[in-house]
């Protein structure tokens, strides 16, 4: 007796019990995919997931129950599948797929790889591994009511990195520190304040007024030359010196610092100036309905707190966090840690009040601060069903019948609830990952950028390499080595010191990903305040085209939005450990002509 389905290709029916399949991710889509595979007669499955189970997973990750909270997802998912059918061979790895244990030969063992991930870094990596191993990959993701499934096969389709993705939303540091205008700016500031007071020291997360703001100096006479208020002892040290006295902290951040900001007059010529708020005055800002004693979900989470309540929560959460900090060198902000979340809610709302920005409920602030993507069981079930229907087709190499499919919310423009593309998406000939000779132009300031910054920001963060080796072409200089200790001396050197100048060619090689990339270095200097620190462009023609019509959405160029400009840019980190599986592949793509609303992307 077997559960291999009828009504599919008879050759696929034969191959199903013999094929080895890898599922990457055991979250929302992963659980569903595993169930569909097991109930369709697949008998040889491997599953990898780094994550452990959280209560908020249980509304959709149905292989897990309350008693599994805290346990590894891959392990529990395996047990759950075996409980239904003990005859299946299923291997679980509680590990990161980026680990060097899973090289190209590991991927080559499989007939198919099914991605059920939640973050771009891992998706990019598995994309490269499957290209290198030449194994078909099914990529999938959901976000709320929407979702998508696509095939990635070397030489047949687009790869995951053929089209540039919209960048993570970032905010200039001076917007956060000096001139917030949206709730999110205040929330980012609140998280930074948490880190300044309790977290690991990070100079990029300064919360004090930024006297270097170019806008503050526009009239040339620079009203703020004395930086006495800026360069003080570290915020954390100062907070410890005053024994985390809530009133003193409150007055410092919401009264004195705001008064200082007001003295930077240029900033307020065309803006509503902030209103400094003392601890004492905050106590009078109560709303009519005093919900202080109401502990219902609605009152605590859904309603906007009065400023008096914010100050009370500010004080209470600081006491708890100070207690938590004892015996540790720092705390890590976590949206599910009550005092940490309370603290950010209170701070963000007080700051919003000061800057005349709309205040938000704790529930809303948690969404933004924790970068939470809504996730439901139904969308995951639908997408995972399609993934396994395509798996049947891929076993018999029926690639032409695996066009991308999009699950979409109801639309007045189209009757398609599930819209399939009419053909496979063609690879981008200039793709810096899947083209035969991967190549990119990199625009950097060779007189400013260090080798370490080049490696971390550009090669790892932007180009998604894991362990690159970099050689300066023509000169044979080893710039970066993945072997420990070989090139550490280069870390703090400026690129030009090593002979890397405008026109230099770097050969970058990631052994794990079996990926070689040629990088042409172009000298570039940021001029404007919001200019990016560097740019990456796959095809120089695209750069020209782009600059002539700068306003096009998201662009087809590889140009990246500002990511980090010394301490000028801050970034909402995407909390990838949170919603691991259903993922959000945040891509914009075209659908077939019957479809009109074709965007599947992550709401911030």
């Amino acid at each position, binding site marked *: *007796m077997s*559960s291999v*389905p*009828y*009504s*599919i290709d008879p050759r696929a029916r034969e191959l199903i019990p013999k094929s080895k399949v890898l599922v990457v991710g055991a979250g929302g889509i992963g659980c*569903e995919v595993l*169930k*569909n595979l097991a*109930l*369709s007669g697949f008998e040889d499955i491997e599953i990898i997931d780094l994550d452990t189970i959280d*209560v*908020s997973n*249980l*509304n*959709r990750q*149905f292989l897990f*129950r*309350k008693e599994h909270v805290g346990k590894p997802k891959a392990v529990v998912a395996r047990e759950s599948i075996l*409980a*239904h*059918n*003990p005859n299946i061979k299923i291997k679980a790895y509680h590990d990161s797929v980026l680990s060097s244990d899973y090289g190209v030969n590991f991927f080559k063992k499989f007939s198919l790889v099914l991605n059920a991930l939640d973050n771009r870094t891992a998706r990019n990596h598995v994309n490269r591994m499957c290209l290198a191993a030449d194994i078909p990959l099914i990529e999938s993701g959901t976000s*709320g*009511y929407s979702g998508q499934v696509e095939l990635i096969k070397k030489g047949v389709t687009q790869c995951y990195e053929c089209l540039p993705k919209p960048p993570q939303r970032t905010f200039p540091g001076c917007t956060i520190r000096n001139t917030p*205008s949206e709730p999110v700016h205040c929330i980012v500031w609140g998280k930074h304040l948490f880190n300044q007071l309790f977290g690991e020291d990070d100079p990029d997360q300064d919360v004090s007024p930024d006297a270097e703001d170019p806008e503050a100096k526009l009239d040339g006479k620079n009203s703020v030359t004395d930086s006495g208020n800026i360069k003080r002892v570290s915020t954390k040290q100062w907070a410890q010196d005053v024994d985390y006295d809530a009133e003193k902290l409150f007055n410092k951040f919401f009264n004195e610092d705001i008064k200082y900001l007001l003295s930077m007059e240029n900033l307020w010529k*065309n*803006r*509503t*100036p902030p209103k400094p708020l003392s601890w004492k005055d905050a106590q009078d800002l109560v709303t009519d309905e005093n919900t202080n004693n109401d502990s*219902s*979900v*609605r009152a605590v*989470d859904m309603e906007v707190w009065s400023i008096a309540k914010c100050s009370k929560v500010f004080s209470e959460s600081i006491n708890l966090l100070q207690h938590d900090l004892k015996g540790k060198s720092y705390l890590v902000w976590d949206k599910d840690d009550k005092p940490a979340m309370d603290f950010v809610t209170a701070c963000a709302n007080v700051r919003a009040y000061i800057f*005349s*920005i709309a205040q938000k409920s704790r529930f809303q602030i948690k969404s933004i601060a924790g970068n*939470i993507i*809504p*996730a*439901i*069981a*139904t*969308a*995951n*079930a*639908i997408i995972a*069903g*399609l993934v*396994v*229907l*395509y798996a049947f087709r891929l076993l018999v190499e029926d690639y032409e*019948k695996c066009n991308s499919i999009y699950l979409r919310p*109801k639309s007045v423009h189209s*009757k*398609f*609830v*599930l*819209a*399939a593309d009419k053909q496979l998406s063609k690879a981008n000939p200039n793709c810096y990952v899947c083209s035969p000779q991967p190549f990119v132009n990199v625009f950097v300031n060779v007189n400013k950028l260090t080798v370490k910054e080049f490696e971390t920001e550009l090669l790892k963060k932007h180009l998604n390499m894991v362990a690159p080796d970099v050689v300066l072409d023509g000169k044979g200089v080893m710039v970066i080595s993945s072997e420990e200790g070989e090139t550490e001396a280069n870390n703090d050197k400026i690129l030009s010191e090593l002979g890397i100048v405008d026109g230099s060619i770097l050969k970058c090689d990631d052994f794990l990903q079996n990926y070689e990339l040629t990088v042409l270095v172009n000298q570039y200097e940021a001029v404007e305040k919001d200019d990016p620190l560097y740019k990456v462009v796959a095809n120089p023609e695209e750069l020209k085209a782009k600059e002539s019509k700068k306003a096009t959405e998201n662009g087809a160029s590889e140009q990246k939005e500002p990511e980090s400009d010394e301490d000028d840019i801050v970034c909402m980190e995407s909390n990838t450990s949170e*919603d691991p599986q259903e993922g959000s592949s945040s891509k914009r793509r075209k659908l077939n002509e019957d479809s009109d609303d074709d965007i599947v992307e992550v709401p911030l």
Partner: protein
Amino acid sequence: MSEKQLSAVEAELYDRQIRLWGIESQERLRAANILLIGIRGLGSEIAKNILLSGINSLVVLDDGIVTEEEQLKNFLLSKDSIGKKIAEEVLLKAQALNPLVKISADTSSPTSKDGTFFEDFTIIIATGLKTDFLLKIDKICRSKKIKFIAGDVFGTFGFSVADFLNHEYFEDQVKLIAKKRAHDGTETKPEKETVKVKSEIIYPELNKVIILPNTKQSVEHIKKVKRRNEYFFLMLTLLEFRDRQERNPDISNKEKDIKVLQEIKSEILDLYGIDQEKLDDGLLELVFGEIVPVCAVLGGVIAQEVIKAVSLKEAPINNVFLFDPLTYSGKEETVG
């Protein structure tokens, strides 16, 4: 704390969906009492999704016995369920999906139930029923203002048909509030505001939607619709097959069943005045067995419609959903 209010435990458990459909929708869901008829491949997928969503109660009605094949394809059953009553056997694993929902089993035959049995539910979901019985339940539902949705999976094909009566629902629309001028003349940023918009969809009765040969009913209102989806007629063919044979197409009887399906298909296409070529005979090869991933797709679509119907949030799709057995796309249609 009142019964209507969500507890902190529920808020945490349902956090990721409350962020999508809001706390009021969640409160409506937790007041919903649902009847699910048929707990096989498709039924178990629907059950999973609505249990996870956090309804108040679920009654599972099915008089079937667990076969070895059914067990292998149904994740709510375990090895020692084989030979026992399916409605009772799914209870243990169904309850584990969500301990907060009251679940019960009814192992009697759906057709043995009298009208009053159906009256206590917020919504009724049916799979695997014959047409005359579907129409009978719809009539009862209409008289008691109960919403109704039915669906089936045949091979790689699947469909659903809904009767949500006169369904009022809410949608959130984001509006920008114009810039305000502050007292000192400076402008503040435009604020985004979410407003609730109420709309209504009126569903036709099921007997205006499912019209088969020999029912002696007019099909003119369906005939006059242009650009008809050919899979609607595949749906009618399969329902008529089940009505006549009192079973679904069976792979062990494949050639004979395809012949019967061909005959029914041509009768139905004649009834609706459609060229025989519009519905390729090759499709009839694809309708055998309940394919698990197709059940997952249809179970997801149907459960999402149930959630919309109960929570009154978001526009439901039109009354008929048809899953394309070749391209795996899925379209909503208005029929009737």
